[in-house]
């Protein structure tokens, strides 16, 4: 009789233990996607509490054990590591799972620099970080198209993002102007403006255009860089006159594409012109030219 009771007790304990073990077993879908609703299967019976803890979210609500728990899309907007926990009459049961990001919807695009001389190799850099619409980082390789357009000419580069980031280093275009630097993923585009300005003046030349009382007027030809872009107005051009009595220097700003200066008239002088580190022609006036 004792033995029978003992066997009965062992069976009852095992049954109870199995029941406890099954009390709140969780069944979670393989790869839930951020922002998409799914259900978590539970087992057992009676009332329980359901917890969902993950990046950016912490949910707690009452549930009926044995019924599926509906997880709303808005509750799992963040990709990453999550823990689902169910507390019933027995000990809490939990399961770790991962939520994947959705499709690309946001590009964090930075373009450097904001202003660059034309035709300069590897001078423009673009970096694009790819996110879904809930700002989850998309780590799977994603094709990104970078294009740089100015004055009707466009150069494009296709790059696959690697671990969430795609980047290029590009040469600036030959034409000056506000270049549109665009990063595109599927139908999402982000635009940045890179101001491409003329490079250093090329073939800087001046000539005498007249005299005024005791002064001589010198003027440059239209000042352009080596690819034909007009050097911006306001750029300083330096005229230097050297004669027996010493040196006169005039800094003149480019106005409407040319620079002009009044220098003291001299019987015999040499006039030089320069813009930045670029030297132009020399004129010999008075006894010379």
């Amino acid at each position, binding site marked *: 009789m004792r033995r029978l009771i003992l066997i009965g007790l062992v069976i009852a304990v095992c049954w109870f233990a199995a029941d406890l073990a099954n009390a709140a077993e969780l069944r979670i879908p393989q790869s839930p996607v951020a922002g998409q609703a799914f259900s978590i299967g539970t087992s057992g019976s009676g009332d329980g509490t359901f917890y969902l803890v993950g990046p*950016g979210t912490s949910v707690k609500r009452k549930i009926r054990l044995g019924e599926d728990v509906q997880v709303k899309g808005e509750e799992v907007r963040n*990709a990453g590591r999550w823990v689902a*926990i169910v507390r019933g009459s027995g000990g809490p049961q*939990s399961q770790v799972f991962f939520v994947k990001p959705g499709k690309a919807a946001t590009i964090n695009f930075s373009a450097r620099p904001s202003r660059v001389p034309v035709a300069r190799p590897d001078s423009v850099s673009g970096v694009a*970080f790819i996110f879904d619409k809930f700002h989850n980082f998309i780590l799977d390789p994603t094709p990104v198209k970078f294009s740089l357009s100015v004055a009707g000419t466009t150069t494009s580069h296709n790059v696959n993002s690697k*671990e969430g980031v795609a980047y290029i280093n590009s040469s600036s275009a030959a034409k000056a102007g506000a270049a549109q630097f665009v990063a595109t993923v599927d139908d999402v585009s982000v635009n940045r403006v890179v101001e491409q300005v003329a490079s250093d003046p090329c073939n800087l030349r001046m000539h005498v255009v007249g005299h005024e009382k005791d002064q001589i007027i010198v003027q440059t030809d239209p000042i352009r860089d080596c690819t034909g872009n007009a050097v911006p107005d306001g750029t300083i051009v330096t005229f230097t006159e050297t004669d027996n009595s010493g040196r006169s220097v005039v800094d003149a700003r480019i106005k409407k594409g040319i620079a002009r200066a009044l220098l003291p008239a001299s019987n015999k002088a040499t006039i030089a012109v320069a813009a930045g580190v670029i030297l132009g022609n020399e004129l010999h006036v008075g006894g010379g030219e």
Partner: protein
Amino acid sequence: MKVRRLIILTLGLAIAFSGTLPLLKRIFADTKPIVQLNIASTTPRAVEDSTQQAIVRDYSAAWQGMGTALANNSIGPLNENFTGYALDKLTERVKEQTQNGLKTRIVDHGHKVDAIFYSSDGSAIELKDTATLETQVLDGDTVIHSDQSQVHYYAVMTGAEDRWKVRVLESTQ
């Protein structure tokens, strides 16, 4: 009489231990996590020594701040170390934890971090982190979940006024 003394002494020791252990645990948890940074394969720009030191310091501080924020449901430590999407998400989590009476305790056993991208202008760096973490979820003071695992994280840090801040922090499988 002797037995009674022994019982009292044992009880006293037990109480002392039960108080000291969580205290030691908390002190341990408040220290900065260890971050080992590898910059051997960073592209397109090499990481400078000073940047390397700053990243180790600030990434470690960010994890410490996140641990404190999630354990105490306080937003302060987040603002110091996070910005952008990472700050938004963690702030939301702390708010929801507070509403639901939950806390998350992270015991951080260290991070092995590879710097995989450092932008040409030096303004952003992407890190790939293998973190060894012990995570506990508490409802009130009851531990309802506990696990210890290696978790992979991707982080993007950007330069802020006086430090690097974590702008993106996402765990992956």
